[in-house]
């Protein structure tokens, strides 16, 4: 199978890097192989090209440092790399949010268009409840739900980004939804819409 060939090739390159054999060449091959995939994920999540390129670079720095911990028996290299990219993108989001908050505070908090106390409270309730439901899920499932349902990525796009088959993307998305529903039931939020 093509997937298995890819896995074997990745494993061989990783093994050589870890043994210190032709590290630069092997790393360059991996970087070239996953360059488009990681950039696509980062660009989709961040919008800007420059931020996306920086995230991809950081992905490789982290990946190289953590390479000894990568276990091919538990998943593909592409999924592992995408996981790092997604976490880094979330980190960029946090930074952007902090800057936006700080700028908003500077602009003064009394703009007519800003939500009133009741609206603000309602938004916080939604935010908090959603966070309660989603925070207990693994990052992969969080990302799948957000990318598919909010960002409207098709299963084909998800499959490509995460390095698995389309049917596997559907399977993981279904598991994510089931886990979210289960968690909502546990928290007494299942009837909440």
């Amino acid at each position, binding site marked *: 199978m093509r997937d298995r060939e890819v896995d074997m090739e990745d494993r061989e390159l990783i093994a050589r890097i870890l043994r210190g054999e032709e590290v630069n060449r092997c790393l360059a091959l991996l970087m070239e192989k996953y360059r488009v995939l990681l950039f696509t994920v980062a660009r989709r999540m961040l919008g800007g090209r420059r931020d996306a390129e920086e995230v991809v670079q950081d992905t490789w720095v982290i990946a190289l440092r953590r390479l000894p911990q990568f276990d091919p028996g538990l*998943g593909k290299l592409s999924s592992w790399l995408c996981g790092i990219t997604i976490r880094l993108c979330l980190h960029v*989001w946090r930074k952007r949010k902090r800057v936006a908050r700080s700028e908003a505070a500077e602009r003064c908090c009394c703009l007519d268009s800003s939500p009133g106390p009741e609206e603000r409270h309602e938004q916080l309730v939604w935010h908090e409840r959603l966070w309660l439901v989603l925070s207990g899920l693994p990052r992969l499932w969080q990302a799948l739900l957000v990318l598919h349902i909010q960002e409207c990525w098709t299963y084909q796009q998800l499959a490509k980004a995460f390095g698995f088959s389309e049917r596997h993307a559907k399977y993981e998305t279904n598991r994510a939804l089931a886990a979210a529903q289960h968690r909502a039931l546990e928290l007494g939020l299942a009837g909440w819409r």
Partner: protein
Amino acid sequence: MDPLEDYGENTGEELDLFGEFTDAQIKGEKPDPEEYLARLKDGSRERLRTMLDNAVWFHGLVQGFKTECPGKSFWDVIGIGRGQEAESGSRR
């Protein structure tokens, strides 16, 4: 069997119908779960019903969130102001 092709209790047909259903949801259509259930045999129908119910429930949450919190994103919900657990966690 290749572990990547092992879908637990689900069949490929169930997953494909589930995928078709949620794809229709994200396109802004209002797919009718009964139409999808009718395309399956009895044994699979209840499993698919649960899957579609979950999808309908979550889609409702997303729509509610978008209405109540215009301009906000789910990325904010899962990523913002929640400490460093996301960075410090490993992939599993």
